[in-house]
């Protein structure tokens, strides 16, 4: 549904994205991971046809997104990473304007979303908190019930409760067959809702895999509590990190025999498994001293 073909966009600073190739299938939720400045927003600008790529192209339903933007925009909902609204308007007036620009007459979905996110649209946008603005941006992106959703860091500024409401919304929309690109540097949310993820580093796509196989590639992490602090454990051949006092974190990847053999030498009083997250996978690509 979205095909990114040999996409290169270089800026004067030397940054940008380089020879990106990936596709997002219809009905798929695709996580796009990378830290700030890695090239996520640059990719999104090309998907939406804002920028002129240095080379390559983005096709949406087979149509070039830079040339036929007007046609493509009929089926797109966009949530920008850096949100700027018309501050002199009330939330309601802003949504009304967007609805008119989209020739949208059916407001039921919009009303449901406002209710769900507990968004008061009577407030002037300039008086809204960052979280409220984010909710407004979510409603603006979803209210016309588009086929494709391009969401740039959608949960930033939302409190944990609202983040969960948002992730539930993504799951529901996925069931309704929507195609979603969700860019993020919060790995947990990608893990929760995405089918596949692409990881971008310094403008290069360094991984493109199913969430499941990405998870399998990572080490299991255990928090090991010793009876008392004993840093001799750090000298074993385990991948280990001293958390604090008598608590240590151990990375285990297939080598359980070594793990048990080494731990036998110490007085262990507690072992807890720590939930693996995309963050650990991510660390693999960004380099982390404990995971190499």
């Amino acid at each position, binding site marked *: 549904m979205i095909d990114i073909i040999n996409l290169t966009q270089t800026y004067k600073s030397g940054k940008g994205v380089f020879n990106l190739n990936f596709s997002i299938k219809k009905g798929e939720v695709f996580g796009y991971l990378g830290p700030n400045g890695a090239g996520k927003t640059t990719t999104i600008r090309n998907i939406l046809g804002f920028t*002129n790529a240095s080379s390559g192209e983005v096709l949406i339903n087979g149509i070039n997104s830079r040339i036929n933007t007007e046609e493509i925009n009929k089926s797109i909902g966009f949530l920008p990473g850096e949100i700027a609204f018309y501050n002199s308007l009330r939330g309601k007036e802003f949504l009304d*304007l*967007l609805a008119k*620009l989209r020739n949208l007459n059916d407001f039921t979905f919009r009303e449901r979303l406002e209710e769900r996110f507990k968004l008061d649209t009577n407030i002037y946008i300039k008086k809204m908190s960052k979280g409220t603005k984010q909710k407004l941006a979510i409603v603006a992106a979803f209210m016309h019930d588009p086929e494709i959703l391009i969401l740039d860091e959608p949960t930033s500024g939302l409190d944990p409760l609202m983040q969960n409401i948002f992730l539930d919304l993504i799951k529901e929309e996925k069931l309704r067959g929507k195609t979603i690109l969700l860019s993020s540097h919060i790995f947990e949310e990608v893990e929760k809702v995405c089918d596949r993820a692409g990881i971008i580093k310094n403008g290069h796509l360094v991984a493109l895999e199913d969430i499941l196989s990405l998870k399998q590639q990572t080490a299991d992490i255990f928090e090991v509590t010793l009876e008392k602090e004993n840093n001799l454990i750090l000298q074993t051949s385990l991948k280990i990190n001293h958390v604090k006092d008598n608590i240590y974190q151990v990375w285990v990847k297939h080598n359980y025999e070594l793990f048990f053999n080494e731990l036998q030498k110490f007085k262990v009083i507690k072992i807890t498994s720590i939930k693996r997250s995309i963050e650990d996978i991510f660390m693999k690509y960004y380099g982390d001293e404990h995971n190499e």
Partner: protein
Amino acid sequence: MNKHLLIYNLKSNIMMFLSFLSITLMYSILATAMFNPETSELLQQFVDVLPQTVVQMMGFTDFGSELTGYLATYLYGFVFFIFPMIFIVMLGNKLIAKQVDDSSMAYLLTTPNSRVKIATTQAFTLFINLFFLIAINVIIIIIISEIAFKGHLMIGNFIGLNFVLFAVLTTVSALVYLISILNSDYGKAIGLSSAFVGYLFIMNMITKLGNKLNILRFSTFLSLVDTDKIFSSTSYTLLTGSITLVVGILIYCLSILIFNKKSLTI
């Protein structure tokens, strides 16, 4: 063009429009009301006492005893250039450069409306605001003149003068719009367009200083609003006005095409 966006634009800029309308109307009403064939001689005597350079730069060279010439001298050398041009700089940049700079343009460009349509609506907003600013002033001046000094205003000449003025200001607005499109940095766009209209305005004032400097009239197209020529030649008025207006509209079209091709970092 998108009518919903146009309505939003007109509404959201109404306060700015009304501010500039009230300033210019205040000058128009005062100037017209102050007209008196006898006292204009007095005014002339007063002006004669002032340093000639200042008088010439302000364009107050000849008040005469005829209302049209009096208004042309009083309003069309200074007031009707400076205020509309400040208005153009503020509005022209708010419609494009500001929205590209703060990325709010992203919302407009992800609706099913082409860039050409969005940019045409923004351009038309600027054009129509300028039109109403001039037109309302013209109508009010004509009404006051007809009530207070029936027959003194040569309406044909006066409308001709305003036609050329509007055409010239349209070209100024088109160039400011072009600057706004070429510069994605709002501050830079405001700076460049202010410098540009400032240059046009100052050169026009210097041009009036004397015959020797008359050659400088080619350095600013504001000098096309030449009251003597407009009042004496209908063909000058029609030709200059029409050509300038067409040039302005062509610059608008060019700006819209550039915006369509531009790579926007929003």
